[in-house]
């Protein structure tokens, strides 16, 4: 349908854009960010804890050394302390010792250089240092790091005991690398996972979109793919399929109705055409032409009636375009309509009896209920035989029941459902005027009022029973 096919590059780009716009992708991205933050926090906590534990360990080693040296000092004074320091300094290991004069002159120990002024203040520090032969490297930045404790001895001598942190730093570096690579892994997995999920979901949604497009193009038989795993998309597809099924049924019904209508309207239209044609061929006097035109107009009026009735039935069935609903006194409507039809019935020699109680109120349209009753009386007068018609309105519990009964031939049980359809006329009725829309209209009116319509055997005759929900007294 597009004017020109997109270039391959553009296609890939627009596919990517489409992917970036999908809900699945956005969700994956949000999850990814959340997971990355969590991973960062968790690994950070581990790293921080590891460092603390290592620092504690170093300090306790230093403290143990100091305790040992303090014992030596207490036992043998400075001389003994220096001896021990010199001996220990020769042992390989991470332990550091330094004894200086108050002016900072080296007396003993395996440390040759510390930052200037470091030894002035006693306490615990982490600082750079250099070993025996590495003098001069401090300035060049190539120093080692250590945790140290500094004491002032009597006579102004300074004692520094420390421990190199290289091991700890190496471990920290390892943790840091692990930290970095696992974050990278989370991000990479997240992005790929997001793409994968988004594409999978997108693929199914695309398939559904494709199917709906073919359905919209007219293939109502098409159904959405259902994968069978019962997830949300499956449920959606199943519901849409059920909806399509229903639409299909309705369309079928509609097509049937419109086919029938087309067929049934052809008859009077053909008659109309033939009359005009015949008049044109045979009428010779102006009077004959006038008479022919009159009958043509009459026939057209009949067609207009059919259209109006069809339109009205359709509107009623759609539940729209009806008069505003209000309280209707059904008993009064029954009496009015009877009064309207009584002279006609009398003219045909048919007694028309009405019995309608008071206060039979329903929610609805007086206009429509009146028209429905008029249609039923009309039918009864036309087809209901010679023995009279009875119209009755009464309350039956929660319902208002209207009965129109005649003593005519009735309607065979098998036909009762069918006569409610549009344009259905029974054999006996075909010779008399009518369109077969009266009962359809009554049925539509009753359904609009949430009532029920039943055609029953009046033994003999037909009894049409309408039951409408009574309005509850306020």
């Amino acid at each position: 349908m597009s004017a020109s096919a997109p270039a391959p590059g553009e296609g890939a780009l627009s596919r990517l854009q489409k992917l970036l716009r999908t809900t699945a992708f956005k969700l994956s991205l949000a999850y990814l960010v959340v997971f990355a933050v969590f991973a960062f926090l968790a690994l950070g906590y581990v790293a921080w804890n590891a460092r603390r534990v290592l620092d504690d360990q170093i300090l306790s080693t230093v403290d143990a050394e100091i305790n040992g040296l303090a014992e030596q000092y207490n036992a043998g004074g400075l001389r003994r302390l220096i001896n021990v320091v010199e001996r220990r300094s020769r042992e390989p290991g991470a332990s550091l010792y330094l004894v200086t004069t108050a002016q900072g002159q080296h007396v003993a120990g395996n440390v040759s250089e510390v930052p200037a002024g470091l030894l002035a203040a006693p306490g615990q520090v982490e600082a750079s240092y250099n070993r025996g032969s590495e003098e001069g490297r401090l300035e060049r930045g190539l120093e080692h790091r250590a945790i140290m404790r500094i004491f002032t001895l009597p006579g102004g001598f300074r004692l520094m005991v420390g421990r190199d942190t290289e091991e700890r730093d190496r471990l920290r570096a390892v943790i840091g690398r692990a930290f970095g690579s696992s974050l990278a892994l989370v991000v990479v997995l997240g992005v790929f996972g997001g793409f994968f999920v988004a594409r999978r979901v997108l693929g199914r949604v695309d398939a559904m979109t494709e199917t709906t497009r073919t359905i919209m193009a007219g293939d109502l038989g098409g159904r959405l793919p259902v994968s069978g795993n019962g997830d949300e998309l499956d449920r959606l597809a199943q519901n849409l399929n059920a909806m399509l099924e229903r639409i299909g049924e309705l369309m079928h019904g509609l097509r049937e109705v419109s086919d029938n209508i087309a067929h049934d309207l052809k008859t009077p239209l053909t008659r109309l055409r033939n009359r005009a044609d015949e008049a044109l061929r045979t009428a010779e006097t102006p009077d004959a032409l006038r008479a022919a035109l009159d009958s043509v107009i009459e026939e057209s009026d009949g067609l207009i009636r059919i259209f109006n009735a069809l339109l009205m039935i359709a509107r009623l069935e759609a539940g729209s375009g009806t008069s505003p609903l209000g309280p209707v006194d059904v008993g009064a409507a029954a009496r009015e309509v009877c009064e309207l039809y009584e002279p006609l019935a009398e003219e045909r020699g048919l007694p028309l009896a009405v019995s309608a109680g008071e206060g039979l109120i329903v929610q609805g349209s007086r206009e429509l209920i009146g028209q429905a009753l008029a249609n039923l009386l009309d039918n009864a007068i036309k087809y209901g035989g010679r023995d009279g018609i009875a119209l009755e309105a009464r309350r039956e519990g929660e319902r208002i029941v209207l009965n129109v009964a005649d003593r005519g031939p009735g309607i065979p049980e098998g036909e009762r459902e069918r006569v409610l359809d549009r344009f259905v006329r029974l054999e006996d009725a075909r010779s008399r005027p009518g369109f077969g829309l009266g009962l359809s209209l009554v049925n539509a009116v009753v359904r609009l009022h949430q009532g029920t319509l039943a055609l029953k055997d009046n033994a003999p005759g037909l009894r049409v029973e309408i039951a409408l929900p009574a309005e509850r007294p306020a």
Partner: protein
Amino acid sequence: MVALPDTEGRSPSALERLSRGAMRLLIIEDDRDALAYLAKAFRESGHMPDTAGDGLDGYALAQGGDYDVLIVDRMLPKLDGLSLVRSLREQGVTTPVLFLSALGQVDDRVKGLRAGGDDYLPKPYAFSELLARAEVLARRRAAVPGSAETTAYRVGDLSLDRLSHRVTRAGREILLQPREFRLLEYLMRHAGQVVTRTMLLENVWDYHFDPQTNVIDVHVSRLRAKIDRDFEHAMIQTVRGAGYMLRAEGARPA
């Protein structure tokens, strides 16, 4: 698509015109064929129609012109019929309005009347029906000034008193059923005018559906039997293809 008003239609007052049986009317309808057909048909019936093809033209003409009846399509370009009539009423224009509509359902009628319309005719309609209704509306307008609710009608030798519910012809009392009385009252109020079967069903029974078969005819013939039986002149006359008219002996049809 606005026809200039006939110059000869300008001079006589509305009452003079109507006494001649001619009414000035404005038809506002966007279907050109229907508009031309209606204008021609009204002209041939002796009336003076102006036409407008959309709501705005119609509104301008209706505001300025001295019309007896406006015939307004519900669905019009530029300004729809309901809004047009509502605006006219707000401007104090009281010219009777007859709505034409393809919608033709009960609530459409209610909407039309609520907007200030006086009558409502669903499409498709017979021209005779439209003509009869337009004439009734025009008459009603001409009769309104000064006349309060009429309590008695007199047509020829037939008289009807609404208060005492007495009907006499040539001094002889005629006994009528309540519905026959209302039927006769309506016919007498519109004496000399055509009233259609639907108009009778609407005004006497207050139902707006299409009267099937010949229910109304039977009522009218019953009434006719009581009114005209013993007299040479039949006052209730059938107008072929349209409806009925009540007319005094020797009176010209309006």
